């Protein structure tokens, strides 16, 4: 993988999200000896979704560790290792399985720095695919952005394209706090143009900052992860009808960049939030609540949300 990515170092080369995450982890593993990766099938299988391809061959058993199917156990082990000064990347094969380990993520990782009065940091990354995939049924399709986004002490990021994926995974690994990186399985194979800055070994995207992917004046459209792409497609269609959408890629769920969304809404007076999670108590609901709290009395706002259906499973809408 490393040899191949060496060939990729030309401006505006196409890099898939999978390759971008792989590059990001590879660079950070090389940069800091304390970084290591553990999870199911991350080593000899090259990753269940091949995201860690080549890393075990390059770094060996000490740095790339295959675990038994024991989410609560290995997540706890990862958190303990972080407390003792290492910098683990803990992969959940999908975030649905992180529910088995969620106590370690929240109670052992997120809350510890606060409870210890600032004595015990936990520099850990939890990463893996989140949300719906293609026909994997109810138990394998849940979006955890709202669940993890709820908790102080945690940082939660949700990359959309390759640039996001590489910049955010590197920032997450270098961050001294527990960071949840919500990837998307259907995005892994999607290629994007990689700007030249993204090829630098120190390319970082700051956690806590959203990006305006498309400027517009009539309506603010806010999304994270794969839906960002859908929003941009929709914006192109709407543009032909004379409606200019401002599409905001959240990039970070927590701490949320509400300022960017607020500034946009002040301009457009219309907001629609788009996400792959359930609407009730979701990311869009939080954005709406914050905007309502923050806007001045003179502003008129129309809000709508586009979510996953309120059913346990996932349903692909027919095109109409």
């Amino acid at each position, binding site marked *: 993988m490393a040899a191949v990515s060496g060939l990729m170092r030309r401006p505006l080369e196409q890099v898939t999200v999978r390759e971008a995450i792989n590059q990001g982890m590879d660079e950070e593993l090389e940069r800091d000896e304390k970084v290591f990766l553990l999870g199911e099938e991350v080593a000899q299988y090259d990753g269940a979704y091949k995201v860690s391809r080549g890393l075990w061959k390059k770094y060996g058993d000490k740095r790339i560790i295959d675990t038994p199917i024991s989410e609560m*156990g290995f997540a*706890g082990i990862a958190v*303990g290792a972080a407390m003792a000064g290492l910098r683990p990347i803990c992969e959940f094969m999908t975030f649905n399985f992180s529910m088995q380990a969620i106590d370690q993520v929240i109670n052992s990782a997120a809350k510890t720095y606060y409870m210890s009065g*600032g004595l*015990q940091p936990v520099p850990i990354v939890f990463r893996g695919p989140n949300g719906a995939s293609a026909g994997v049924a109810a138990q394998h399709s849940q979006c955890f952005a709202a669940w993890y986004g709820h908790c102080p002490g945690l940082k939660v990021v949700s990359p959309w394209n390759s640039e996001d994926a590489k910049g955010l995974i590197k920032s997450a690994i270098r961050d*001294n706090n527990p960071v949840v990186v919500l990837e998307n399985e259907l995005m892994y194979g999607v290629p994007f143009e990689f700007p030249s800055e993204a090829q630098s070994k120190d390319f970082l995207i700051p956690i806590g900052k959203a990006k305006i992917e498309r400027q517009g004046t009539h309506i603010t459209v806010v999304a994270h992860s794969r839906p960002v792409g859908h929003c941009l497609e929709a914006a192109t269609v709407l543009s032909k009808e004379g409606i200019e959408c401002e599409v905001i890629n959240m990039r970070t769920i927590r701490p949320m960049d509400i300022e960017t969304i607020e500034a946009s809404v002040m301009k457009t007076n219309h907001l629609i939030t788009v996400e792959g999670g359930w609407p009730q108590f979701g990311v869009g609901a939080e954005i709406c609540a914050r905007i309502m709290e923050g806007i001045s009395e003179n502003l008129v706002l129309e809000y709508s949300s586009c979510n996953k259906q309120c059913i346990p499973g996932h349903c692909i809408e027919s095109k109409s």
Partner: protein
Amino acid sequence: MRKMLAAVSRVLSGVSQKPASRVLVASRNFANDATFEIKKCDLHRLEEGPPVTTVLTREDGLRYYRMMQTVRRMELKADQLYKQKIIRGFCHLCDGQEACCVGLEAGINPTDHLITAYRAHGFTFTRGLSVREILAELTGRRGGCAKGKGGSMHMYAKNFYGGNGIVGAQVPLGAGIALACKYNGKDEVCLTLYGDGAANQGQIFEAYNMAALWKLPCIFICENNRYGMGTSVERAAASTDYYKRGDFIPGLRVDGMDILCVREATRFAAAYCRSGKGPILMELQTYRYHGHSMSDPGVSYRTREEIQEVRSKSDPIMLLKDRMVNSNLASVEELKEIDVEVRKEIEDAAQFATADPEPPLEELGYHIYSSDPPFEVRGANQWIKFKSIS
């Protein structure tokens, strides 16, 4: 001779400070050390166990006595402060279990690591924090070791990872700390403690599996005080041989009321781990005098007679004291003197813990994230903001 000395000592103690009685006591000939027989440990998957005799030096003995007495008095003071409502919230006391925390510490180095559950005040002390910092944390004041933000269950020190509130969660954490020890290539081990109640948690078995697979230098230690809250071991576990529950992990069952037994077993276990053989399991059979927590009188699920019997026959401080006095390692007066000093230390600490102010409200939002620039945290409504610094 002894009576005369005692009489003179008493008189002098009354009129002057310590030095006089110290001189008198020091002029007695104490033994430098003594050899004691200790109970043989039950073994699981081990050919040999810890030795059945051990040498205790006078210096070590006095130190262990002082430490155990300090933990005892500190816990009793916490009980008192709780009943006065100066300590609130959770408070789980470990009086009766002093031989565990002091004995374990005696068997390891300060560079080794230790993690335990919520009955943690004793370990917080033996791992190096002062009684002052501990009591002030219990009373929630700024002089507490976690600045008053952690409380009874969340105290941290160097190489001591708390203090953990979720039963059993600390065990995979401990295995992770052991992984870091191995990763760093240092000769360090991690003592990972849990109770008889926690021993039935699934994540502990996950931790056993990975620790054994990867040969982590982890000493799993079950502090079996016979009751998980109010459920006795017979009512909770299909097998109460906790030292065997690690299955493929070798184990020993240790008399947790005898500090020398605990010390020897710990030395044995630590040597095993340091040699790279992988994890080992110790079950310490011990007893708590208090109920599970301050809201539990501790007598609805066990009899007062049982508690009294343990107190009179197996009290760890009494056992050490008897040994030392009978082997001429120390005198009764000398140990009483230590008692007096300890009481004073605890009293001073309690004064501090009662008088110290609470952390300022402005700092409510501090320490949410590490190493980050300051930011604002929402308060109870959108117009209340707290500053957060790392």
